[in-house]
């Protein structure tokens, strides 16, 4: 057998490789279709990213503003009480609020909170009750626990409304506002979970909403005529929230988008009415609805400000769940036969979860990690 020189062999080899260079050109139609799909996927990611940012920003803003809100509400309460020469109530409310804060912060179920537990919206201690709710929520860590607590508070609001109706009194606007904000906050909490978690959370919210609707429907049966309009507004609000929940269960992306739009709208259009030009003026006084002015922790605004916020987003709160980039290395072909095809296993992995790298490491080729390593599907080989 005659052996050709290496060089001649390589020339022949290169000629054969060159045969692969001509190729069937890409169909413009297929290329356009691929481009469209790529951009649609990008749009989806972009929307999700914006949604997460909006929710996160909103919650952060609430958290940052919460302490100052509390202090401002306290100061306004004092101003209001001064105006009405009720110094002893000033002291009482101030001390009570401080007690609430300290008792919760240091683990005790304070007497002040306990005293305010059963207060109604028209009561002096109602603001303390709401403050207590907010502080509890602030101290609650996981989103799911925050949700449970928030839904408990919305149940309270519906019961309060039913009670007020039964007593033939007017429903204070701030109660409606608070109710709506807490429901919105619950929806926002759900949006911060991943799709599976959000689905469970929305089911929970829906169950609560149906329960609250039943309570209010029963209350309406005995409601005085003048309460009908407000009650209808409240029920309509609950139904709107149920529709929102249904949307979230059917289409999580659309749900997040809509929620984001609502947040943006609220942030850009609605100014809390208790933001007077003169901050020293304790805001609107008590109106005909027996609303005792802007009480402690009364958000009294349409925006998200004043709604109890959660802690900052945690790494685990990403939606979709964050997946840290991993570097991986393939492992080499067996020693002694460098030309063996790689012994690879575990194909078909999720590219996002699989460490990047090469399926088979070439002996002596080096395996420095690259920050640009792409998602890989064959990051693991066996050496």
């Amino acid at each position: 057998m005659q052996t050709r020189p290496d060089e001649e062999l390589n020339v022949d080899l290169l000629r054969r490789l060159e045969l692969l260079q001509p190729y069937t050109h890409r169909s413009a139609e297929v290329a356009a279709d691929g481009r469209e799909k790529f951009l649609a996927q990008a749009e989806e990611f972009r929307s999700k990213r914006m949604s997460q940012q909006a929710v996160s920003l909103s919650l952060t803003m609430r958290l940052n503003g919460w302490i100052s809100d509390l202090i401002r509400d306290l100061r306004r309460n004092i101003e209001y009480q001064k105006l009405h020469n009720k110094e002893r109530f000033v002291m009482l409310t101030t001390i009570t609020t401080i007690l609430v804060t300290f008792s919760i912060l240091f683990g005790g179920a304070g007497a002040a909170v306990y005293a305010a537990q059963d207060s109604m919206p028209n009561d002096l201690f109602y603001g303390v009750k709401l403050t207590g709710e907010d502080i509890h929520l602030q101290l609650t860590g996981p989103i799911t626990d925050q949700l449970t607590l928030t839904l408990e508070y919305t149940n309270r609001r519906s019961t309060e409304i039913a009670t007020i109706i039964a007593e033939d009194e007017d429903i204070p606007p701030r109660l409606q506002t608070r109710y709506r904000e807490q429901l919105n906050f619950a929806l926002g909490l759900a949006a911060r979970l991943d799709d599976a978690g959000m689905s469970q959370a929305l089911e929970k919210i829906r169950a609560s909403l149906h329960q609250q609707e039943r309570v209010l429907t029963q209350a309406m049966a005995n409601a005085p005529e003048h309460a009908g309009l407000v009650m209808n507004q409240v029920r309509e609000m609950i139904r709107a929230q149920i529709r929102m929940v249904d949307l979230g269960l059917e289409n999580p992306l659309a749900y997040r988008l809509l929620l984001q739009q609502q947040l943006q709208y609220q942030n850009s259009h609605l100014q809390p009415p208790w933001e007077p030009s003169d901050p020293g003026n304790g805001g609107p006084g008590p109106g005909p609805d027996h609303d005792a002015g802007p009480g402690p922790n009364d958000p009294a605004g349409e925006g998200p400000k004043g709604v109890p916020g959660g802690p900052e987003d945690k790494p685990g709160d990403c939606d979709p769940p964050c997946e840290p980039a991993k570097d991986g290395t393939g492992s080499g072909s067996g020693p002694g036969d460098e030309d063996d095809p790689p012994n690879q296993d575990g194909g078909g992995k999720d590219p996002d979860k699989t460490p990047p790298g090469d399926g088979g490491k070439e002996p002596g080729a080096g395996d420095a990690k690259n920050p640009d390593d792409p998602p890989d599907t064959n990051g693991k080989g066996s050496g």
Partner: protein
Amino acid sequence: MDNEHTLLERVRQLDERALSELYDLYSGEIYRYAVRLSGNTDWAEECVAETFSRLLTALNGGGGPKQYLRAYLYRIAHNWITDYYRRQPQDPISLDPEIYAEPDIEPHEVVIQEHERQQVRSALKKLTPDQRQVIALKFLEGWKNQEIARAMNKPISAVKSLQHRGLKALRRILENEP
């Protein structure tokens, strides 16, 4: 390079125009790379779609290229092709090859050429992924060693070594082909 760096910055923000530009700039190249290795246009389209989709997923998760977009895309495509080979023990081109024919060539020559192409592709498939990538980028795509080194994140000396051993292995495989 500056242009690519600027483009990368915008792509990382998922900027629509930047992504359009990116796709127009590189999808054709990736398609060509895949179709040369496979000879199958559907397969190549799938490779393009998956490559760009994985890029988006990586960007969305905070990953993605830090410096070289093009090299990154080729690495994704290379990984996809390697994975595809592994999942498809049979040569994907053997069932429904799309024969490339130049207009002025005789039909029997077309058949011979296509047979030779299939042999080369089949031989390439038997190389290690690194060897295959070096050979494909160097001799099919016409890249320089420095570019290949960047795409593979290996020193140039390693690229040269891979090229040498890859050609040697390819020659041996082709000699043993019937």
